[in-house]
């Protein structure tokens, strides 16, 4: 293991944070330089990340690659332990790709009231926090990265958001913080219950798999950490911060929020809660499944009632994350693979949807479906076409990325893990509910397209000089569109990466 392999993922993760400091030091009037730096920094980090993904040994049985485990805070037994396995790799790379695309988008669009420097610096801080969460293998380190995203996102929503931004920002902050403090409590409890005391995720995993934690303890600890993750996902009924945060956030904020930050919650379930507390997971699985099924149906119904385009996409996120959680609740390898696939697909598709809605708003200056009034296809054929394509991907059309995550989640809930054999009937009910959800999802997306894309251009927009998709948009969108098609056709691109790690992780639940 040479020095580069040990430090590469840390360099990629912290590069944006260093870049943020550099950007802060650039003089205010060098607007182009600031935006250019944003692109260069995110590009450099992405190049390292993609390079590592190519370098990643997919056939190896090693649990962690590019691992670095060194002293950090001996006083409290916290170590700087980072590494990558098949589960974290797709999400980690996705973080860098989406951030890079966001930086390109910012080349043209900095939301009101400007302040590009602060905007990009916060976005880069956010990138470090998100990327770090996916590589941390020490609970304290994990928690620090996890919380690192709160402050930048609070300011991104609070400064650059729309009318109701302050309310949405503080609601987002309080909700997530409330969940995460209980998560911290759960972490500490696990630390003190493990012998010897450790915050190391792998050691705790081994200890948990060996039956080190009593069932009673697991029930409590799982409840505490799951609360933190559930708020972040967000699972119904903890989702109410999400529509507000998404609706008020600037486009970039929504893209990163939907694209990556929500995945931190589901990733937490897969990485921390399930393997360390298997009996807790088993006990809670039917409840998680129930809440997921409710989320799928509830979100679809809520979407049918939305008048605001962005709010509609936000609620659709709740539904999609419901499918991801349903996959996790089954505790099967297929379910977890479905979940990770669903996370990536949702990141690409919903990120892209928020880009589209942002661009529509940038032209129409309204997000109200009624005010746009239809005719997008006629007025802006390219934007309308892309929007239609991504919406259809989102409703789960076979052949596009959205399909596999959903269908595999439904498939896995037909036959949940061996340890859940008592609840097979229940999970099949969830499957039916999820199936109804997919129909409703198709319904609200098609209805939305009908109201926004179809029809004739209303009188008031007929002569408006809206530009169709511009260069910065093409550059930041094409990679996402290509990925949506590619993952739809070759799902192995993700599942091939995750499967090995998932199989070894889920052996616990085979029953």
């Amino acid at each position, binding site marked *: 293991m040479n020095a580069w392999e040990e430090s590469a993922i840390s360099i990629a993760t912290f590069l944006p944070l260093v870049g943020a400091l550099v950007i802060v030091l650039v003089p205010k009037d060098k607007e182009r330089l600031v935006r250019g730096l944003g692109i260069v920094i995110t590009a450099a980090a992405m190049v390292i990340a993609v390079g590592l993904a190519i370098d990643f040994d997919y056939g190896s049985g090693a649990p962690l690659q590019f691992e670095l485990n060194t002293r950090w805070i001996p006083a*409290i037994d916290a170590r700087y332990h980072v590494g990558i396995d098949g589960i974290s790799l797709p999400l980690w790379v996705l973080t860098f790709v989406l951030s890079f695309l966001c930086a390109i988008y910012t080349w043209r669009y900095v939301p009101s009231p400007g302040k590009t420097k602060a905007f990009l610096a916060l976005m880069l801080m956010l990138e470090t926090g998100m990327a770090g969460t996916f590589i941390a293998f020490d609970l304290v380190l994990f928690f*620090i990265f996890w*919380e690192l995203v709160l402050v930048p996102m609070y300011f991104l929503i*609070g400064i650059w958001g729309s009318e109701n931004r302050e309310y949405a920002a*503080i609601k987002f902050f309080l909700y997530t913080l409330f969940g995460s403090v209980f998560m911290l*409590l759960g972490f*500490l409890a696990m630390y*003190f219950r493990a012998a010897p005391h450790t915050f190391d995720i792998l050691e705790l995993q081994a200890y948990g798999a060996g039956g080190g934690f009593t069932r009673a303890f697991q029930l409590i600890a799982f409840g505490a950490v799951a609360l933190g993750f559930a708020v972040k996902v967000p699972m119904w009924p903890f989702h109410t911060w999400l529509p507000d945060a998404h609706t008020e956030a600037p486009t970039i904020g929504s893209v990163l929020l939907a694209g990556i930050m929500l995945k931190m919650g589901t990733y937490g379930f897969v990485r921390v809660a399930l393997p360390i507390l298997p009996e807790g997971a088993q006990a809670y699985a039917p409840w998680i499944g129930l809440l997921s099924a409710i989320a799928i149906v509830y979100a679809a119904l809520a979407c049918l009632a939305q008048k605001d385009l962005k709010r509609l996409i936000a609620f659709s996120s709740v539904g999609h994350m419901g499918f991801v959680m349903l996959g996790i609740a089954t505790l099967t390898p297929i379910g977890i693979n479905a979940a990770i696939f669903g996370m990536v697909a949702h990141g690409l598709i919903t990120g892209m949807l928020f880009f589209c809605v942002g661009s529509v708003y940038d032209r129409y200056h309204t997000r109200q479906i009624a005010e746009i009034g239809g005719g997008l296809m006629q007025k802006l054929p390219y934007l309308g076409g892309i929007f239609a394509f991504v919406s259809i991907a989102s409703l789960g059309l076979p052949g596009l990325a959205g399909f596999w995550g959903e269908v595999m989640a439904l498939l896995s809930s037909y036959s949940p893990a061996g340890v859940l054999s008592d609840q097979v009937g229940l999970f099949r009910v969830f499957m039916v509910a999820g199936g109804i959800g997919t129909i409703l999802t198709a319904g609200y997306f098609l209805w939305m397209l009908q109201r926004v894309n179809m029809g004739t251009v209303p009188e008031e927009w007929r002569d408006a000089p809206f530009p169709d998709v511009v260069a910065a948009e093409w550059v930041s969108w094409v990679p996402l569109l290509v990925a949506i098609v590619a993952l739809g056709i070759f799902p192995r691109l993700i599942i091939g990466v995750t499967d090995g790690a998932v199989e070894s992780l889920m052996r616990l639940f085979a029953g």
Partner: protein
Amino acid sequence: MNQVIDYHAILPELILSGTIVLVLFVDAFLKERSWFAMPLALTGVVASLIATLTLVGEHRSTFGDSFVVDDFAVMFKLFFLSVAIVVLAISLRYFRDGGSYQGEYYFLLLTSFLGCLMMPSSRDLLVLFISLELVSAPGFLMAAFRKTDLRSNEAGLKFFLIGVLSTAVMLYGMSLMYGVTGATNLAQIGVALAGDLEQGKETLALAAILFITVGFGFKVSAVPFQFWAPDTYEGAPVPVAAFLATASKAAGFAGLLQLMFVAFPAQFEFWTPIFAVLSILTMTIGNFVALQQRQAVRLLAYSSIAQAGYMLLPFALVTADQAANQDVFAASTTYILIYAVMTLGAFAVVTALSRESRALPISDFDGLAKRAPVLTVAMTVFMLALAGIPPMGGFWAKFLVFRVAVERGGIGVALAVIMLVNSVVSIAYYLAIPRAMIFQAPQRERPFASPVLVTGVTFVAMVAVVAIGIYPELLAHFPPLSTLVGP
């Protein structure tokens, strides 16, 4: 009794006493340039700091073991002297431009700090009492230092009346304790209380502990003895409020730590529930009342009350297990030190702003991001740190307390949950000032003029808070410092 005084052990106090006398003469002889008192005072503090550094690692005691210099004492002395430097730095322009009697002010301030310096060395009820009064009595006068301002007069008077009352209660407790044990030395009291006490004496001893705890409860503004603090902080000059919220409070805690861990550890079953209740009330009421505040100093005052609740929490976790008590002790001490850095920084920013606004409603912070970006970033860091958001230093303070609470199990977990909920609530008001600074439009257009010294100490405090947050190992040598808790 022929005593040899260890002059090296009391050198920091001696230097500071000499400086105090010199400073008092400044007003009399240098009328035109009485601001000169500040550099003079600063020189004395720095000299005292250097003298304290020569004591690092030493273990000395003098005056018949009633004055002890050990790691605990040296650490707190270094801390108090650093706080003194900051308070002096933010005082210069405030009092020079305010046209007050500067020599008098610096004399009082240093006298208070002399009390602070003595406090962590006081291992005798009498010395402890003298130190405490030395901290408080000049404080009464300093709180009322804006003589033409009615609020300031009210601040001083309230502080005085409550202070005297609490002193009386505490003194009563101390006399009872002497009656029971026949000793004033803390270590001897500890030995006496650990032995078998007769039935009646046991009750008396518990009553004495209760009275002394109540007395210190006033000093550290624990609920229900907190009501003087917001009015006093608001009325007092801002640098004085900064002193009261940090050094004065920390001195109270230093005294409390010594009493509880040296003199009264045997009775922990009696006093841990008291501290549990005090802690819960203090953090909860402090936080919830803070939510209603519309004035910056009052907000910081309630914040300091709530924070006192977090500092009191570890006291409720003491057991007979000395190894665990080490961690408990370290958690409380570390919290006090980190809290002081964050709060001092926040008060420095408020001092800077007090130059253009006397009443200091939060709305006066509107749009400061445009006019004073460095102060805005610093204030945001301090507020997030006080709320305990990583990666700021305040997170580790909270983390250590959570840690010992969870380790204790049972009641500890319950206390931890209450503290967690409180920390979440606190973010709502801690963000009020950054929100005004960043989200609102400025009320004035002209550039903001902040004195160089104030900006300087603000910046240093901010760097310290972030540095502790990123590399908390900086604090790792604190746990071994808890020489008070030994087998």
